């Protein structure tokens, strides 16, 4: 009797059903170009089944403030990466032009605006938290912030929450 050896099929590794991998982003900036890195990375993490938290603090509150979240700006001032002559960057209207260009490019790539992006993340199971001190500092009420928030946390509760998480400050 002969035995025929067959190679096992090549199947992608989809990971274990349970993983304790956890990631947290602290968003402390309210400009358009500083909002997207966390949003995109959070989306990638969620897509890979990783528990994901975003904590909004200081100017990052603009990303969840109903009044500002749909209208973040990008400023070329003090940003050498724009390759714009430093003297031109502060000219009147330059921020509006730079913002418009960045938004147009994002739209062309079908990347959602900040409010829709947060909704997308929330649908994927992302946890969104507002910083208690920032809420007090900017005199915000619950109604002023997106309904997608999981809650308002002080920093010690946030520390408990991210126990074991990879954490990034943006």
């Amino acid at each position, binding site marked *: 009797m002969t035995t025929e050896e067959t190679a096992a099929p090549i199947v992608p590794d989809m990971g274990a059903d349970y993983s304790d991998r956890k990631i947290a982003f602290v968003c402390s900036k309210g400009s358009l170009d500083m909002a997207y890195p966390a949003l995109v990375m959070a989306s990638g993490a969620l*897509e890979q089944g990783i528990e994901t938290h975003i904590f909004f603090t200081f100017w990052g509150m603009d990303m969840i403030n109903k009044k500002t979240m749909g209208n973040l700006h990008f400023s070329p001032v003090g940003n050498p990466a724009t390759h714009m002559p430093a003297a031109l960057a502060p000219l009147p209207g330059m921020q509006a032009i730079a913002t418009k260009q960045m938004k147009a490019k994002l739209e062309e790539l079908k990347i959602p605006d900040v409010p829709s*992006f947060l909704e*997308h993340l929330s649908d994927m199971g992302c946890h969104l938290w507002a910083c208690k001190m920032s809420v007090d500092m900017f005199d915000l009420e619950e109604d002023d912030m997106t309904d997608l928030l999981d809650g308002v946390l002080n920093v010690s509760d946030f520390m408990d929450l991210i126990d074991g998480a990879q954490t990034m400050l943006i």
Partner: protein
Amino acid sequence: MPVTTIADKQVHVDEEGFLTEFDEWDKDLAQALATNIGIDDLTDEHWKVIEFLRSDYQEQGETATLRRVSTVGGIPTKTLFQLFPKKPARKMSYISGLQKPAGCI
């Protein structure tokens, strides 16, 4: 490209195991692929996603991202996570015989 045998059929796959030839896929293979990654029964809802991905690929030449499946395909993101738990983008592409999405969102 490696060749692997799934449901008695020889198919071309990349190093991870995603099918590389659009025409080597058929519905029977889809069920076998699904079983390989722990989805034992493909429901009508699964098929709706698979059919969208296959036809969108033919039009666009690339695998739709989760967001595209929800905004263009009309299947809510939450549903995708229920149908293809944990790693929906990879799982739905694999079962549909496509490469995993290249886009970030």
